[in-house]
C-alpha cells in the first residue's frame, strides 16, 4: 500500500508532470466546452487557436481533432542558437530559463512588472505557459526534453513546418549531450574533488528530466560528502563558537555576507 519508491520524482512521474504543460492547438473540429476538474476547457471553433494542457492536446491529436502548434523554442534556429550558447558562449553553465511572464507597470512606465504580481499564488512550471505559441524562442523551458520528445513522437507531422524531424532530433541530441557533460561536471563544485565543500550549489536552467536522471547520483555525492565530513564540520562549528561568533547555530549564516555583523558583535564583547 505504501509507496516503495525512493525520494525524488522518477522518470515516469516527471513525464506525467510534463503533460500538464500548456500548448497551443489549432482545432479541426468543433467541440463544445467540457467541464473538467481543472476548470472548463475553451470551446473549440476551427480555425481559432486555443491553449490547452498537453495531455488533452495529444488526445485531440490522436483523434485527428486538432493540430498542435510547435512552441517557438523547438525551431531549429532557436535550438542551434541555444547549442551555440551552451557550447561557445557559456561552456560551464546551463543556458538561462525562460523569463518570467511580465507586463508593463501602470505606475512606473518603462519598467515591466511580473504578471499577477499581487496574486498570492505564483505559477511555476509546468503551469507557467512556456510551451505555447507565444513562448519566447531561445530559451529551454523546465520540461523541454519531455515536451520535445512527446511532440516529435505523437505530433511529428505538425512539426514539419519547423524543418525535418531528423534535424530537430539531432540538435536535441547535441543539447542533451552538452548538458549531460555539464551535469557531471557540476559534481566538482559539489566538492567531489576534495576542495572546499560549500553548502549551496545552483544549477540554474537545468531541466526536469536531467534532474531526474542525475538525482540519485548527485544527492548521493552530497549526502556522502556530508557524512564523511561530519566530524570536520562539527569541529569547525565548535571553533567558530569559541571564537565568539554566533557562527554555527541553527540558522546557518556566519560566513560570507554576514562577516561584518560578526566582527561588529566581537567589538561589542
Amino acid at each position, binding site marked *: 500500500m505504501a509507496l516503495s519508491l525512493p525520494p525524488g520524482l522518477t522518470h515516469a512521474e516527471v513525464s506525467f508532470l510534463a503533460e500538464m504543460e500548456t500548448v497551443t492547438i489549432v482545432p479541426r473540429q468543433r467541440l463544445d466546452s467540457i467541464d473538467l*476538474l481543472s476548470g472548463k476547457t475553451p470551446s473549440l471553433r476551427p480555425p481559432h487557436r486555443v491553449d490547452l494542457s498537453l495531455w488533452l492536446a495529444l488526445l485531440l491529436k490522436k483523434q485527428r481533432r486538432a493540430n498542435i502548434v510547435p512552441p517557438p523554442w523547438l525551431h531549429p534556429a532557436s535550438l542551434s542558437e541555444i547549442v551555440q550558447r551552451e557550447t561557445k558562449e557559456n561552456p560551464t553553465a546551463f543556458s538561462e530559463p525562460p523569463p518570467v511572464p511580465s507586463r508593463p507597470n501602470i505606475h512606473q512606465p518603462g519598467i515591466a512588472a511580473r504578471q499577477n504580481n499581487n496574486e498570492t499564488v505564483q505559477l511555476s512550471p509546468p503551469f507557467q505557459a512556456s510551451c505555447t505559441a507565444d513562448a519566447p524562442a531561445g530559451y529551454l523551458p523546465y520540461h523541454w526534453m519531455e515536451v520535445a520528445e512527446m511532440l516529435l513522437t505523437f505530433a511529428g507531422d505538425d512539426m514539419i513546418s519547423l524543418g525535418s524531424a531528423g534535424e530537430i532530433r539531432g540538435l536535441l541530441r547535441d543539447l542533451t549531450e552538452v548538458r549531460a557533460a555539464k551535469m557531471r561536471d557540476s559534481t566538482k563544485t559539489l566538492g567531489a574533488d576534495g576542495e572546499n565543500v560549500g*553548502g549551496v*550549489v545552483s544549477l540554474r536552467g537545468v531541466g526536469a528530466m536531467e534532474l531526474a536522471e542525475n538525482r540519485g547520483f548527485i544527492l548521493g555525492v552530497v549526502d556522502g560528502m556530508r557524512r564523511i565530513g561530519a566530524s570536520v564540520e562539527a569541529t569547525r562549528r565548535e571553533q567558530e563558537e569559541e571564537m565568539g561568533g554566533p557562527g554555527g547555530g541553527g540558522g546557518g549564516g556566519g560566513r560570507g555576507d554576514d562577516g561584518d555583523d560578526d566582527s561588529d558583535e566581537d567589538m561589542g564583547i
Partner: protein
Amino acid sequence: MDIDDILREVDPTFHSIPKEKQDLQELTRAWIAERSAPELLPWPPNGLFERINDNIKSQIEKVEEMTGDMDPRTNFALIVIQTELERYKYLVRSYLRARIAKIDKHTLHYLSTDNLRSRLSEMELAYATRHQALLHNHYLSSFLSSFPPQLQNLNDAAGINMVETPDLDAAVFIRLLKDVFVEGRGVDSDVTMDGRESDIVILRWSDAKPLVEAGQAELV
C-alpha cells in the same frame, strides 16, 4: 474597488488564475514536495485535499450519469473527462501513498510530540496509532513478554534513542520562486548565495525548509 481594479479588468494581459487551476497547482506541488522531502510535511491547509476529493466524487457521479446516453458527441467529452479523472486520482493516490510510506517508516517519531502529530490528517493519525498498537501487541505476545520488564519498551530514549528519525540534513533540490538570499551549511564553510527567481539549488533540507515554508521556494 479602486482604479487599479478597474484598469485590471479591462487589461487583456491580466488573467487572474482560476480557482480550479490554483487547486491543481497546489495539489501538484504538495505531491512533488512529499515525494522529495526526507520528512513528512504538514497536511495541506484550507481544506484543499477535502475539496479536491469532493470534486472527484461529484465528477465520478457525472460520468456515471453520462454513460447512460450514448450520443456520440458527448461520448468524446466523456473520454476526456475520464482521462482527466484518472490523472487526478493518480496524483491523490501517489500523494497519500508517499505519506503512508513515511508514516510507516518512522511511526513512533511522528506520534512522539503534539507538534509532529499535527502534521497528520485525522485518518492518518488513527491509522498510525492503531497500526502501532497492533504491532506492539504482536511483539508483546510473540517475544517481548519474555524480556525483563525494563527492556520491553519500544521507545526508550535513555542512552541511545530507539526512535528512528528521518535525516533532516539530507540534500534536496528546490526552485526559488522569489529573489532571496539562500543560506546553506556546508562541511568546510557556510555559504550565503544571492539567489534569483527560478534558480534550481541543491542544499540541505534543514536549510531549505524555512524558504519552502515561507513560500519563497518549492521542492522539485
